[in-house]
């Protein structure tokens, strides 16, 4: 099971700034291990963020994104005290969703 994300969300001037740190290997599928065999690709393919049932961010990622990725974005209209949820899904079908309260 994947490790939890760290999500920080702060509301200011009518918009919410969200910082997400994800724990993922992000293997490109191009690297070889010590015995010369290819390390199979394993990376996050889609990321989405939802606020009160509405999707505020949707992204498609590829193997060029770094290990343990960091994502920062802003969206308009979020309220302090509400929840923001972030979900990722990788190419092996593994999924993880975490929630955080907006400060």
């Amino acid at each position: 099971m994947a490790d939890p994300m760290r999500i920080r969300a702060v509301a200011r001037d009518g918009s919410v700034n969200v910082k997400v740190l994800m724990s993922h290997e992000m293997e490109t599928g191009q690297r070889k291990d010590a015995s010369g065999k290819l390390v199979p690709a394993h990376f996050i393919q889609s990321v989405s963020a939802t606020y009160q049932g509405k999707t505020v961010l949707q992204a498609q990622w590829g193997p060029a994104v770094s290990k343990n990725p960091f994502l920062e974005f802003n969206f308009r209209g979020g309220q302090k005290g509400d929840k923001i949820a972030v979900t990722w899904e990788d190419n092996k079908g593994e999924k993880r969703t975490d929630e955080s309260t907006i400060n």
Partner: protein
Amino acid sequence: MNRRSIKLEVVVALAGLAVACAAHAQRKEAAASATKDAVTADFEKFRAVMEEASPAELFEARGEELWQAKRGPKNASLEQCDLGLGPGVLKGAYVRMPRYFADADQVMDAERRIVHCMVTLQGFKAQDLAKQPFSNESRTPDPVVLVTYVAGQSRGMKIAVPQKHPKEREIFGIGREIYNFRAGPWDFSCASCHGEDGKRIRTQELPNFSSKEQAIRAFQGWPGYRMTGGLMHTLQWRLNDCFRQQRFPEPGYVSETLTALLTYVGANANGHVYKGPGIKR
């Protein structure tokens, strides 16, 4: 013109040249220090951006879970582990180590103490833990994750390595000896690189660990997430790497040698604020 006056003229000309050279050198030096400052300032900007997104936090979170989990042959958690401030007290423990522990009758640094707890409380075998002491791409050893968690509990606190117990003072002296001990195929010591102000390797400035002002830089940013390879490392790894780079034999995992060095540098850094686990290039 007689010979004497020719000589005089030559001397005057040379003196003029010397003045010009000195002025030129001064300008060059000023320019060099300006570029150096610009490079250092850019490095600091880069570090500030990286610190905001430091994956060290992910390891801290994992360490918290690991600390509370019942594990090992004795199926116990580490919550009864005494890091010097009482069983289970983590706040401020990291910045007060290395310190003397009466139950073990020796001075221990943070990682050594945590390994000691894993052995005594959880029943793990020290030789098993020493099999893979440092992170590689397939595995981050448990002590690394635990040290990162414990270090995070001292974020923003002042380094206060105790020097009251005679054994603490003794090991400080041993640490100073090791730091200054020149040996190996390159006749190196720690002090060769870290014993003078203003030294650097490529663009990296080298802190002088014998200085009360700079010794803090040995602790700042460690345990650290290295962007090269994306691995989490503790001071045990960093000091081990210093031995390797000097072409010295590498010390054993959580050896007394490293406790001694950490006591020497730690006590020198006393009073400076520790910023918590960090990120390294």
